[in-house]
């Protein structure tokens, strides 16, 4: 449905995209993760037609974008773009904003009222539809921002940080809205700084760094490929661990010890039993599964927001 091959774009001496490639299949939800400056937004803007690539190819719906404005525009009309900025007209009402962007996306004059009603229900902004957008809260603007990008029923949605700066309730509501779009069969390319968001929403993740896709796969695949399947266990004792007991344990501080275990059911009970038999009193046990965060750091060598 969407394929980017060997995309390259330089701004002076900086390579924003350096041979980036990815594929988005029909109905798929793909997460695009990368540190700041990795090239995510440049890639999304290139797909949206707002960045001209130096080289490389973008295919949409089986057709290669050829740089022909009219032909490319027809293909891109089937895209929905939800920018990171709250790109709304503040002096227009919610309904007027929806009407403007609906018309710009080619929704017919006759279809507009029904689509706006759908969007207002979708965003739960029906009771504020005639209020100026500048009076809205951040969460309300985010919901409207999303609705303006999907009003024309796009087949592919490009979502750039859809929940940045919103409170947990609004974030949950936006996730529900995205769930509705998924039920409608739309494909989605999501860039986000929230790893939990990518983990929760996306079937597949592409990690991008220095303008290149450095890894892709499901969360489990990425984790297995980088940090493995080991769980981390941290055990806190009442007294420091005597020497010579359970040599596999690593001393984390005076009373805490830790270990990496591949099979929780097989390995954890004997470990705890050996401590009890050695006369130790166990105060707490914390078990953590391998995370996308750990995988991300392993892949890029830095935190997401660096």
């Amino acid at each position, binding site marked *: 449905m969407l394929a980017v091959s060997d995309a390259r774009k330089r701004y002076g001496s900086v390579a924003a995209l350096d041979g980036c490639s990815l594929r988005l299949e029909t109905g798929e939800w793909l997460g695009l993760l990368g540190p700041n400056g990795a090239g995510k937004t440049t890639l999304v803007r290139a797909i*949206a037609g*707002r960045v*001209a690539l130096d080289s490389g190819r973008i295919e949409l719906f089986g057709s290669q974008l050829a740089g022909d404005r009219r032909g490319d525009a027809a293909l*891109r009309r089937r895209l929905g773009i939800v920018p990171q*900025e709250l*790109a709304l*007209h503040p002096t227009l009402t919610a309904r007027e904003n929806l009407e403007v962007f609906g018309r*710009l996306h080619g929704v017919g004059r006759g279809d507009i009222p029904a689509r706006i009603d759908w969007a207002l229900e979708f965003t739960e902004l029906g009771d504020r539809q005639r209020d100026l957008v500048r009076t809205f809260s951040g969460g309300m603007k985010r919901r409207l921002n999303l609705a303006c990008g999907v009003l024309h029923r796009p087949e592919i949605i490009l979502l750039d940080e859809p929940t940045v700066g919103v409170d947990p309730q609004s974030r949950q509501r936006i996730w529900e809205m995205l769930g509705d779009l998924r039920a409608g069969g739309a494909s989605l390319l999501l860039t986000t700084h929230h790893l939990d968001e990518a983990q929760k929403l996306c079937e597949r993740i592409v990690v991008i760094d220095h303008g290149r896709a450095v890894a892709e796969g499901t969360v489990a695949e990425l984790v297995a490929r980088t940090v493995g399947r080991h769980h981390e266990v941290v055990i806190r004792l009442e007294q420091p661990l005597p020497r010579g007991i359970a040599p596999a344990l690593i001393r984390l501080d005076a009373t805490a010890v830790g270990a990496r275990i591949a099979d929780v059911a097989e390995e954890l009970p004997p470990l705890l039993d050996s401590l009890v038999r050695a006369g130790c009193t166990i105060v707490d046990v914390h078990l953590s599964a391998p995370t996308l965060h750990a995988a991300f750091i392993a892949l890029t060598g830095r935190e997401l927001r660096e």
Partner: protein
Amino acid sequence: MIAALLRVGWLTLKRDRFALILTFVLPIVFFSVFALVFGRQGRSEIAPIPVVIVDEDGSDASSRFVEGLLREPGLRARAAEDGAAPLDRAAAEGLVRRGAVPVAIILRSGFGAGFGGSFGAFAVPPPSDDAEERGAPVAIAELLVDSADPMATPIVSGLLQKVAMTAAPDLVAERGIELFSRFGGELTMQQRAAIATMRAALRPESAGGRAAPGATAAGPFAGPVPVRTVDVLGDRKTSGMVGYFAAGTAVMFLLFSMSGAAGTLLDDEADGTLERTLATGVGLARLLGAKWVFHALVGVVQICAMFLWAALLFRLELLSRLPGFILMTLATAGAASAFGLLLAGLCRTRAQLSGLATVVILIMSAIGGSMFPRRFLPEWAQAAGNATFNAWAVDGYERIFWYDQPTWSIWPQLCVLVGLTIVFLALARLLARRWDAR
């Protein structure tokens, strides 16, 4: 703590070059322009007044007087239409009516006979059958004037007297001697001989043919050349001046409102709506075109409101000049809208646009005739004014409302405004390349 805040202010200002220019350079430029334009009024740099001369008398005295007028540095005079036949009264009046010159000097039939002999009550008999008021000096010259330029009439009138004294002092002396002879008795032969010698010395060719520097024209009475002034456009004075001020004000504020409206492009850029709109496939040219059309329509309404108000409150004759008014309004609003887009293209932020627009528009308005008629400006400022949008717009409206010219006569103004619109739009599109996909 205050020092830290001061440092923030200083660093912010220092790094914003445009703000630095706005703060320190543009005010000085602005002041300099105004000082140059207005600071030398009343001094030697007042522009020579363009006049046309019609010699209806054809006498030696009138010919010499015409030559004197043509040499007068305070006038830019001509007696013929581009080297062709001499002008007649109708042609001269037409030039005044069209606003080509503010004054036409008519040397009436009998000018030679009456020249220099009409000091007040001692006037010689009327040279023509005009009904001059009893006892008043007989006018041997007429000034057909455009009262839109109130300065021109008294200046030309004074210069006529000066030229009379310097171009034909011998004739003035002769008329004086005649008057003396009539009321003081005949002169002796010896006196006559002395006066003849003096007259010969007074002839301009004896003095090198040049007007004596510093010669004054005005006499205690009507001077050697009694003048009658005819305001050929006087019947339209009120409406015309209202029309001028409506046009000047409308054009200046139109530019302000258009630059402000074009600033929405910068707002849209800042809040991301421009990027989002362009991502929908709307081309930049189409986007600029839509903005141009909308702002131009707003401009049309703005100008119409101004003139309607003038018509209702100040009895501006609008209906009889509707076609010309509509054409000028469409062209003016279109050009102003394009100019606003150009200014927006030049700027990166709303603050920059606001500062730049204020300075540029005020300077253009000052030398372009939006604040007061350009004819009062020094010659160089009038010439510079031709490069401004305001001058052509105001001139067009002035032709319609003051000179009452037919609609077709504003074609030069319309052509220039349409040309400016095309140039402004092309430059605005060029500057807007920064918003293209790149």
